[in-house]
């Protein structure tokens, strides 16, 4: 299954992804109306000044997601096929239990609707909005195996370059 993977070393902290996410999740999908609606983003670009990095944080759609396990009303469910963790607003009572167990702190709160708010991996889009928006390709959408394979190859190249340089 395809996942959203984050390459923090490439993130420049421009927050395009946050804006694209908020617009995608505005009720009207209409920018003009979306603004009065104050749509909420579902991912968070965390600035880590000590290390001069920005790290985009979003739902990992964990296997056996803890948030799903603790949700008392069944508002959170996990698709057995895709692994995507979905949230049903109608069942949500805003008890905040899911947020308290989420390891990554990426479940937010819609105060007006008094409901949890989280990444749904953009079910209506082929490529999630945040991934499509990112100018530096810090966010990628692909199979874990493919991405890991590419990363292995890149690291191997760097290692090889290093070995070649030191033996010269």
């Amino acid at each position, binding site marked *: 299954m395809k996942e959203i993977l984050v390459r923090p070393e490439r993130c420049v902290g421009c*927050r395009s992804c946050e804006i694209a996410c908020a617009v995608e999740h505005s009720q009207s999908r209409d920018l003009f109306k979306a603004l009065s609606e104050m749509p909420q983003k579902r991912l968070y670009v965390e600035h880590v000044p000590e290390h001069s990095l920005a790290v985009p944080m979003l739902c990992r759609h964990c296997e056996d997601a803890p948030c799903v396990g603790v949700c008392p009303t069944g508002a959170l469910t996990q698709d057995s096929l895709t692994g995507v963790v979905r949230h049903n607003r109608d069942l949500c009572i805003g008890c905040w239990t899911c947020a308290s167990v989420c390891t990554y702190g990426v479940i937010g709160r819609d105060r007006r609707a008094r409901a949890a708010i989280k990444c749904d991996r953009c079910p209506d889009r082929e490529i999630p909005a945040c991934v499509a928006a990112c100018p530096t390709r810090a966010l990628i959408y692909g199979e874990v195996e493919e991405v890991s394979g590419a990363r292995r190859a890149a690291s191997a190249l760097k290692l090889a370059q290093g070995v070649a340089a030191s033996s010269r």
Partner: protein
Amino acid sequence: MTSRTPTVCPYCAVGCGFYITPNGVEYMQDHPVNEGSLCPKGNVAPDVLNHVERLRYPMMRTGDGWIRVSWSEALDRVAEEMPRALREKGPKALAFLGSAKCTNEENYTFQKIARLMGTNSIDNSARRCHSPTIIALRRMLGTPAMTNPISDLALSDCIFVIGSNLAENHPVVARWILRAKDRGAAVIVADPRVTPTAWLADLHLQLNPGTDIALINGMINVILGEGLEDRSFIRERTRGFEELDVSDYTPERVSSITGLSAADIVRAARLYAKAGASSIVYCMGITQHSCGTENVTACANLALICGQVGRPGTGILPLRGQNNVQGACDMGALADFYPGWRSVDDSGAIDELRRLWNARSLPLGRGLTADMMPDADLRFLYVMGEDIVNSHPAVARRRERLKRGFVVVQDIFLTDTAKLADLVLPAAAWAEKEGTFTSTERRVQWVSRAREPPGDARPDLWILSEVAARLGFDLPHDPEEVLAEINQAVPAYGGICRMNAGRRGGIIWPCPHPDHPGTPVLHTERFSTPDGRARITPVHHPAPERTSPEHPMILITGRVVLHYNSGSMTMRSEGLVKREPELHVDVHPDDAVRFGVADGDTVMIETRWGRARARAKLTPGQKRGTLFMPFHFPETNLVASELLDEKSMMPELKVAACRIWRAD
């Protein structure tokens, strides 16, 4: 209206493409510059179109208030006041300020009206971002523009970024730099601050503000000392190398000026000179200085002695600010150039235009630049899409001065400048009209009309041609017709038409005739100087702005990712304002202790020119002894320095001695 219309982002000059749909934005995956993705500003670009504050009707001032007037009343009034000022005080009493956000066709028409009225007092906001680039690159290379396309950065082996925080200001450029890094390229970033651009660097040179020339001359000193220069390139393609004496700029001496270690200077020099293909990227950190022209000159010297020009992956890449800065300048909306970069002093070159325009005579000699206009004795000022009050230093004084003649402002919002006008004309925004924009990489793209303008707002070109008609000039109001005239007036645009500019990604000038494919890389065989050789030109480190016991800190200004220039557009985009609502000042924690300032305090900043209030943000990446303020907030321009670069008339916006204290 069709479901989606291709367009070009109206913010920075990268020229990203996307589609406007009835709902907002759709990504254009096959655009050659951005390959779909957009930065935050691009993502919310349609925000301004239907904004409630858009100007909808022409308005005339009555004492303190406004009355709505018809278009014919408004246009008649312009056509009365302009000739009246001319009759009473001559052409010197008229001034025109064009817009780097309007199309080529509009800027061309605007400057033509100014010149037909007998004045060269026409300028645009390029004055405040890249006039040093224009002056220096035109003299040295022959063409005042970026030498290679942005995507060429992916082919560089070494990228030297100086005075640019592109990761925040032109985020899409970072995409191509990262691609180069994937191939193993080295990235050097020279910036006093630890910016997100510096995060990309393999070598970050955190130099003292305003010491760029010393750094570059130091690198040249190392390169010449180690014999890393490209002798045959220097011999065959340049002039003036013999005069280049940088023997004073030893790494040790440069180290004391710049605050960098000598080893880092040597390392940067070797990385740049030894790489197979090296490029230099710079922005307003280089140009917005009273030595801006010399700064650009130094960059070009470095590229020339290493032969790093004229091939893919090399070159000098000034990142322009607004979406049509390059175009507005190519069109001659400048006090020192006519269309096609004809100097205002070159009567021979101007003669061709005189024939083309059927004019009896055209004015010679430099007119008033944007920064001189408020202080001049004007009777009539026509401002098209520019917020001169907020985007220039010394806001308060300008506000006073601007009020002395008849002021027409044509814009999409009631900006602070428009508030001072006698007549306000509502214009159409970029997606409500047609015409071409030229991005920073010389890419000319045709923009189609995607929506109707609100109320009675009209395309700038329509307004200008109506004004012209009332003045007795018969100028075309159809963008295609104007472009056809531009083909003749601007040789580099000779073959550009709606068809080739309207293709995905448009066409890169020079495109001298209709079958020409465009010219992504300049100077491959010869430079565009008269003899085909580039001019190496020595420059020296100037006396910098100094701190004093009274003003112990150095203030640096720049941009942040979510806002844009004076903010007349982004400050009206809720999605952006919500995330960056107020003016802040970055302070190093040690300096904060020194001045008794805590994170979140309201502080006052004072320079020789003024004072401003801001919220303190403790930022470890800020260089000790310096402060940083983003310039999208009017307050920042209250404190910016008013010193000018004599050659380009660029104000010193980047460096000012200042003091800071807690305001309770």
